[in-house]
């Protein structure tokens, strides 16, 4: 079992002084360590505030600062010089005085990001963002679990190890930053914003900039510069004005209203998770689940009438409110354009290997279908694990725990099917692929879910290379990635 970070390490992490990337990664992913960090951070901040106020209240220097020439006269002979020295010393003292009393606010990137992540709660339901690159522009929900759209951008983000589901968030920025071993941070303090910039020499993404609003540390813009000169800007695009779609089936608005609020318990959250799972709405549908006071709010964007009805019928639960939001036209149009952009012909050698099995189009469809299915299941499993940490699972009854495990089991079983199909397809191109010995993660199902998600994302990325001009050179890596997921799934038996 992985050891937790010591308090020295956590404090060093808060101060941006931790040199051990492994420990840093652990803290970033460990709720227990982050909670301990939050406690230390509170005390540390309290002292910082105390020190600032104490300085404000301290007695001022009793005399005016002496002129440098006067000081030079009383300094030892070896340190004295001519008049120019006095002038220089005067300037020097002046510079120090200005530096000391008007120096820009110094902010540590790690500390700022840590504070921002603990301060900013989940993204408001219906919040949208605009993502703009040289080739694409799209407006989409700020938190988006749909796997099929914006394929080029999604793959670009995956290759950079930057979270696509929620790209304008402190969590995603920190996760990327912490995945980079050699980096350089800076914080530009502007009147209304903190602008955090991280540069690195390795990886696909060479620089990322996140702008945080000073008043509440909320991320409002992100700029990404990739090594191939691609640049992406992400900004907030406001909250969707139509809380309930005009295209919704008649009568849904009244039905969507929450029943009188009850306390949001782990049991209620499980009921919602199970309801969504029953109708397959936990597999990449644009549905956000969040707590709002004593209510669980489900925000669904762009569902068709049938799915909307299904959703509302499944979620007639006291304390649960469903909000239906229509997609914007620009989003739909751009998604189609981006998705079409991925259809590229493979190299001739590659195509020859398919002879007798599939046409290129059939093969591409099958690979994409299996990959999408696998990643959707892996994401759903990871989301379930994050929604029900061990402490919350303990609040459930034995029967409810069995339901939770059954949902996880369904995802794993479905994932096995997708991976098996993907392996069969990959074997056509690389029959020599060797079996992989699974690297055991350990007993906790949440850790295994996280591992499966990482491996699936890697496989998804590798599979996308099948459609690149140098796919043949990558065949072994693609097959190996698929086999690694298959091996990791064995741990669930």
């Amino acid at each position, binding site marked *: 079992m992985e050891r937790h970070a010591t308090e020295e390490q956590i*404090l060093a992490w808060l101060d941006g002084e931790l040199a051990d990337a492994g420990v840093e990664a652990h803290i970033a992913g460990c709720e227990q360590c982050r909670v301990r960090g939050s406690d*230390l951070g509170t005390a540390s901040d309290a002292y910082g505030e105390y020190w600032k106020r104490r300085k404000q209240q301290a007695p001022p220097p009793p005399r005016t600062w002496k002129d440098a020439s006067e000081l030079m006269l009383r300094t030892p002979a070896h340190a004295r010089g001519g008049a120019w020295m006095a002038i220089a010393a005067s300037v020097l003292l002046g510079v120090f005085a200005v530096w000391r009393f008007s120096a820009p606010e110094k902010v540590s990137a790690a500390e700022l990001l840590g504070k921002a992540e603990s301060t900013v709660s989940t993204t408001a339901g219906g919040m949208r963002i605009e993502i703009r690159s040289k080739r694409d522009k799209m407006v989409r929900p700020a938190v988006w679990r749909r796997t099929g759209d914006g394929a080029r951008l999604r793959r670009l983000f995956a290759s950079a190890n930057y979270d696509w589901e929620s790209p304008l968030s402190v969590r995603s920025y920190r996760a990327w930053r912490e995945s980079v071993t050699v980096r350089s941070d800076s914080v530009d303090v502007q009147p209304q914003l903190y602008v955090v910039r991280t540069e690195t020499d390795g990886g696909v993404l060479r620089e990322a900039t996140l702008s945080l609003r000073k008043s509440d540390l909320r991320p409002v813009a992100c700029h990404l510069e990739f090594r191939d000169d691609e640049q992406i800007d992400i900004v907030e695009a406001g909250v969707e004005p139509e809380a309930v779609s005009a295209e919704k089936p008649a009568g849904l608005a009244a039905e969507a209203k929450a029943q009188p609020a009850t306390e949001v318990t782990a049991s209620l959250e499980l009921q919602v998770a199970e309801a969504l799972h029953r109708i397959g709405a936990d597999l990449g549908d644009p549905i956000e689940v969040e707590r709002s006071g004593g209510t669980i709010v489900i925000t669904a964007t762009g569902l068709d009438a049938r799915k909307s009805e299904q959703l509302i019928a499944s979620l007639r639960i006291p304390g649960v409110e469903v909000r239906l939001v229509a997609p914007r036209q620009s989003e739909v149009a751009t998604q189609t354009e981006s998705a079409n952009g991925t259809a590229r012909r493979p190299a001739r050698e590659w195509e020859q290997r398919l002879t007798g099995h599939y046409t290129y189009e059939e093969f591409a469809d099958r690979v994409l279908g299996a990959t999408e299915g696998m990643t959707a299941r892996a994401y759903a499993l990871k989301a379930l694990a994050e929604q029900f940490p061990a402490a919350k699972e303990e609040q459930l009854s034995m029967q409810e725990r069995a339901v939770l495990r059954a949902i996880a089991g369904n995802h794993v079983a479905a994932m096995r099917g997708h991976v098996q199909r993907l392996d069969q397809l990959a074997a056509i191109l690389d029959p020599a692929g060797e079996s992989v010995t699974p690297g055991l993660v350990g007993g906790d199902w949440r850790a295994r879910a996280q591992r499966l998600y990482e491996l699936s994302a890697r496989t998804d990325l590798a599979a996308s290379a099948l459609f690149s001009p140098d796919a043949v050179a990558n065949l072994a890596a693609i097959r190996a990635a698929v086999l690694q997921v298959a091996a990791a799934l064995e741990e669930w038996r």
Partner: protein
Amino acid sequence: MYHYLLTFQLDPASAQDVTQEVFLRLYSVWKKEEQIRNPRAWVFKVAHNLGLTTRKRSARWEPMEESAYPAGAAHPECQALDKERAKLIEEALHELSAQQRQVLHLRAEGLKYREIADAIGVRVSTVSVFLTRAVKRLRKAIE
């Protein structure tokens, strides 16, 4: 720098003298074209040493009793809470060693662990330990 020197219980006039002395020494070094790898750490180190020396040969100055949280425009209830918290922090500070307090002050001034280590003449790992103990003590005090 001046405020840091006040934490050595120097009276304001002595703290001011030492501050000016530190910068004159810096100037002197630069004039001789000697290299200083990290000027910020260097000035705090000199200040630290001069502060200790000066304190030994002069009477200790007792800072004013008022809390570090002066009355301002804040809500009276907030002021009371702030004062209470400042009092708890001050009590906790009294229980810390001088070095632990200095490490806290230097970090609050924005020095990095390496710079603090250079300034007070300890190892970086010791700075980390001092800081953690100090922060834990503060956390316990304000809980």
